[in-house]
């Protein structure tokens, strides 16, 4: 990245941050509207508004060199809506100018206030006066509204390079050869620090007034000094930078655990890179690594282009959102068209900003490149009438009362469950019988049968087996084993876990081959009795079942005939119903979950 120097650029934000003043050393001040990103006004020759004829005749804008600029608004306490805010400028000639930006005229001016040049302007947050310091080593207190010089005292025998006042207005810091802290009311020196060997460019109090931050020309660090009246003269913390800082800002962080407040420091280096440090304590701040905000170098112009490069000009810490991140208001880009943005900076994640080329007249070749890029950047999608072709269609739902009722009242749930149970029972009588214990459950039968498997010698009961094979197996059994087999077969038949078609040959074969031995067994007779009963009971139903099947056949054939003209409605509907039923159940459960989520949210 090619370095650009922003040392000579003076910037100031309006108190409400909606205007931004910038001057580049040619005596012209541009006021930008930070919301619109446009120039609001430009003041080329401020002194021309002055009543004095002398000023008008001699001073053009190039003859004024501004050395410092601050935008101050002081009578905030009054409830008037339009707080008068003044842009206070110090010149190299030693004049102090207060410029009413909204009125577009000079509010007041003090000629030759600091012979040799004004070096610093500062004011506290709620005071009604401003302080200036100059090369003559004096500090002046000036009334904000009228511009009357109220007080003057000597802060140093040498030129004061920088001066600042704490936000409560009680302490004042000047930087000459040493860094001195004064009581602003009686001008007594409170503390003295070693300070910087060179001239100090930035000096700023922290919000709580306990520390002071400073940076000097040609020194690549920011020093933090603790104001506690101690005799210690060295800096309590040094934050290293790649280039000297031209701008400093800080905010305190409330951290409950520590006695000391945490701090967050913002600095802009000479090359226009913004540094951001964050620490919950001074110790942490000292060890913290800076987060850098810079403009992405990819977007930089080609190296041939000789002109101002986009940089960051000014920044302001707006506040600390949550631990280790801060809202920063940044001014970046080219001088002809700076862009203004609010940024959330997280400590530890460097930020690269894009450079906008809006409103800049470029050499022909570059503008072509730019325009090409532009056109590709964004493409508008257009959809016509047929815009919903791949859209999801609603999944149909039917709502009936039970669901809603259950949804509303969980006590109704059991009732509803029973009802569902009834429906299921009606469908399958077997299940019901099984449940009542009339039928043995399938599991029992299976377990019984499993015991017999060794007897069957691996023959599958569920498949048709040749009679000869059955006979051979049955004959190979001991009578006691045969009884067991018969018992389990009978159970299986009764419980219908196996088809009678396969089980009955086995029963038959067992009875034929081992019938003689059964008569002697007590338990076997009982079993044979039950077998007899079952067969007897099934006999008479046979006729009616046959009739039923005949009728069914007739009906199905009729239905088939009818379906050639129209499909069977009853059948379809029943299907639909059952599927609906299932979905509704799912829906119900889902909703229940959601509900609990909502309530838990509320609790938290």
């Amino acid at each position: 990245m090619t370095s650009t120097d922003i040392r000579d650029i003076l910037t100031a934000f309006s108190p409400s941050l909606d205007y931004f003043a910038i001057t580049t050393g040619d005596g012209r001040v541009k006021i930008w509207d930070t919301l619109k990103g446009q120039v609001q006004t430009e003041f080329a020759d401020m002194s021309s508004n002055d009543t004095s004829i002398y000023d008008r005749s001699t001073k053009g804008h190039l003859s004024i060199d501004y050395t410092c600029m601050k935008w101050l608004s002081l009578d905030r306490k009054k409830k008037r809506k339009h707080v008068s805010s003044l842009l206070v400028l110090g010149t190299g000639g030693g004049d102090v100018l207060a410029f009413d930006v909204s009125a577009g005229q000079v509010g007041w001016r003090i000629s030759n206030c600091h012979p040799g040049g004004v070096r610093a302007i500062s004011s506290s947050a709620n005071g009604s006066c401003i302080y200036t310091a100059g090369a003559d080593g004096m500090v002046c207190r000036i009334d904000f509204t009228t511009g009357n010089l109220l007080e003057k005292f000597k802060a140093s025998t040498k030129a004061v390079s920088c001066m600042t006042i704490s936000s409560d207005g009680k302490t004042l810091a000047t930087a000459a050869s040493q860094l001195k802290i004064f009581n602003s009311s009686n001008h007594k020196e409170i503390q003295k620090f070693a300070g910087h060997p060179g001239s100090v460019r930035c000096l700023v109090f922290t919000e709580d007034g306990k520390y002071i931050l400073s940076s000097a020309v040609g020194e690549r660090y920011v020093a933090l000094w603790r104001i506690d009246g101690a005799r210690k003269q060295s800096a309590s913390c040094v934050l290293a930078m790649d280039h000297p800082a031209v701008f400093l800002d800080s905010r305190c962080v409330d951290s409950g655990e520590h006695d000391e407040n945490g701090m967050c420091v913002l600095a802009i280096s000479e090359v226009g890179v913004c540094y951001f440090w964050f620490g919950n304590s001074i110790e942490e701040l000292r060890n913290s690594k800076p987060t850098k905000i810079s403009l992405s170098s990819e977007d930089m112009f080609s190296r041939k282009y000789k002109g101002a490069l986009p940089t960051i000009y000014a920044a302001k810490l707006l506040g600390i959102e949550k631990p280790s991140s801060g809202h920063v208001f940044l001014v970046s880009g080219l001088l002809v068209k700076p862009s203004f943005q609010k940024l959330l900076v997280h400590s530890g994640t460097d930020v690269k900003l894009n450079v906008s080329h809006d409103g800049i007249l470029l050499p022909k070749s570059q503008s072509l490149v730019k325009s090409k890029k532009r056109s590709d950047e964004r493409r508008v999608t257009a959809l016509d009438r047929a815009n919903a072709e791949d859209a999801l269609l609603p999944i149909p739902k039917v709502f009936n009362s039970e669901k809603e009722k259950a949804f509303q009242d969980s006590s109704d749930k059991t009732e509803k469950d029973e009802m569902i149970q009834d429906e299921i029972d009606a469908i399958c009588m077997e299940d019901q019988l099984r449940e009542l214990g009339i039928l043995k459950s399938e599991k029992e039968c299976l377990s019984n049968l499993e015991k017999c498997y060794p007897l069957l010698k691996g023959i599958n009961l569920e498949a048709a087996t040749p009679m000869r094979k059955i006979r051979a197996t049955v004959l190979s059994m001991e009578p006691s084993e045969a009884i067991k087999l018969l018992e389990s077969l009978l159970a299986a038949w009764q419980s219908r876990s196996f088809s009678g078609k396969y089980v009955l040959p086995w029963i038959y074969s067992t009875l034929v081959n081992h019938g003689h031995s059964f008569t002697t067994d007590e338990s076997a007779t009982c079993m044979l009795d039950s077998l007899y009963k079952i067969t007897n009971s099934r006999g008479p139903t046979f006729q009616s079942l046959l009739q039923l099947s005949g009728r069914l056949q007739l009906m199905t054939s009729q239905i088939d005939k009818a379906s050639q003209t129209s499909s069977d409605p009853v059948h379809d509907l029943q299907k639909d119903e059952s599927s609906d039923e299932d979905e509704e159940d799912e829906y119900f459960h889902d909703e229940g979950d959601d509900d609990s989520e909502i309530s838990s949210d509320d609790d938290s």
Partner: protein
Amino acid sequence: MIRGGQNYVSSPPAFSNDCKRVLVCTGNTVSVFSTSTGLQVSSLEGHTAPVTSILVVPATDVFCYCWTSSFDGTIRYWDLSVPEMVKKLDLGMPVSSMVIPSFLGSPEETNAKTSSVFAYVSVHDGKAWQIRKCNLTNYQKVGKLVLKETERPEPLIISPSGNYLGIKDKCKLHIWKLPRVESDLAVAKKITLHHTKNITILAFHPTERTVAAGDVTGRILIWRGFGTQKFLDPSGSNNRISMNDGEDKPGVRQNDDAESCSVWHWHSAAVSLLSFSPDGAYLYSGGKEGVLVLWQLDSGKKNFLPRIGSPLLYFIESPDPSLSLISCADNQIHMLKTPSMEIMRSISGIKPPLSYQEVCENFSGKAAFDCTSGLVAVQTENYGIQFYSLFANRGVYEVQVCERNHQPVDDVTVLVTLVELSVDGSTMGTVEVKLPEEGIGGVVCLKFWELDSDTKRFSVSTVIYEPHRDVDISAVAFHPTRRMAVSTSYGGDFKIWVCKERDIQQKGQRLQNSGWMCHAVGSYKNKAMRAATFSADGSVLAVAADTVITLWDPDKNVLMAVVGETPTPIVSLAFAGKSEYLLSISHGLKPQLSVWSMSKLAMAWSYRLHVEAVCSTIDSSYFAILALLPESNERAFKGNGIILLFNATDPIPVASMSVMKPKGGALAFLKGDLSEQAVIDGKTPQTLLVYINGDREYVIFNPYDKEGHKLSVIRQDVALEETGQFGYSSIYGELPKFDLQKEKTLSVMSSASERPWETIFNGSSHMLPPLTKLCSVFLESLLEKRTAVAE
């Protein structure tokens, strides 16, 4: 509390004597702007009703004073340098216009005069507007003498020499010659000039006895030598008039007392601006076309300043001959360099409400809010959207929604009917309607806009033509967290749109392109859908289908539940922040605000109120409504609207504020001001409520702050005093409680367990279950109920 959005062009502005300031009537206050920067310098606050006229006292020295008149019935005298009020005269009658003749005469003449300053005022005595005289120096009462009564408040026009006073009254001009030495009893002589059309504006020549008038058809009439007989001749007898029976008076009608009358016609619509140049050689005119025309009086040659883009209202000359200003109907004041007629700088405010609201019935002029950055988006007359910073009280930028030029005189063919911003302010949805010409060619167009992160400007991302076939879109709502939106139509369906990233291969480059696509389509019994909203977590989409609310899963497009029934169609829906309550608003004969509990799917409580707007906080269960009060209550309450702040669980409002002009107003909760106060005062950002009224004036205040209630009223300094009861209960007394009980029973009634037949037939019509099934459930439910009764 921050106020803003004032109308700068309600009354003519005035220049200060040194031309460095311009005084603009902004509602109840007078704002002082600097002519060199266009920024506001100070304001004169004190009037309690809109200021109608400003008159600067002529003086050569630095001290600057001015008189203002207002509808609040007072005339006040201000010191501009401080700025503070010096004197207040209470006329007790609203003043619509005021002129002070003695300010205009030559300075030596004013010095010679008696010390009393007389003003002519147009006041309303309860029946009609009367023009009366008023002694400002020794004020006791308004003069009894009534010069003229008019039906409407007519602006008083005075000649630059201060000798003549004129008003227009339908087709007539009334001109008085003011007495040379004013006193309480001095009577002015009057003549009347006639025309065949309604006159809209008049202006006096600075030196000659010439008056110009514009009419509704765009003609400009110039009477020269008016009042020759009556004003010049002290004996002025009627006989002489009848003798001169119009022979040598070209163009003069009905024996009017004028020497000649000529007509110029260039404007196609009514002339609204007419002014002679100070030297009397030129005449400025302007009208709805937004073109300032400069006529050379002798020759009638014209010179134009075109493309101002908005109807012109006032033209004010300054003492400095090179500076003048014109006020435009789009709330802008342009400062003109006079000889060259170029605009040097402008003072611009929020765009006024659209004039074509009545053209389209489905039109909603509602503003949309970007809560995080404190911007409001309003539709502008020239088919655009203006983004206005609420905290800074100035426009940020404008976006053109449709690519078409705006000519104020043209018929409206395109309307931007809806603007909606997503919660984070990164996406905007607009709906524009091209009105059909003779029944054909109407097109509805939905556009999605994306915010460019660098430039902070919106640009079009997706254009959807006829999103709901040819039916108008009733509402657009954005998902709170994801890039999803829903649009509902009167045609009975809604569509869910999602923004998808797509890669496009082009010229060997891979481009990321994001476009909005239709994700799902839904409908409910083909009922017109008028409102939609997402819940705070975005898991539920509520769509109002006529009188019921349907709840959908926006991802799967599954109808999850159908809630309730309001007496009239629902026009607006909102979830009460993160709570489980949903608010519905219905208008019509039985307007209602209903709060539905999502856990019970039943109404929790409701009010019979005509609610104009509703907004809810993002992080709590509070919500605010803007309700129109019935006419009968206006006496008990100052203002015709009320803002009520509720906690969703409780039907008793937490706070109430009365406001003016609620019709077309909107409400929003803003995140606290990060830029201004918070930084300097070190306060934590708080939630603020912004109310923007039908005239797009707004006020930002902290609704939870009790102090705020006392002054949170636009155009009204006497605040709503909260005496014991809350504002609402003080009107309706016991009603809230009664309502609560009633609705509680209602909630039980409407719950499905008791009356399943109410909800059993709800469902997509083509997917209704078979009757056999319904029948059994129906009977079952009946049986169930009887057992319940037996118990």
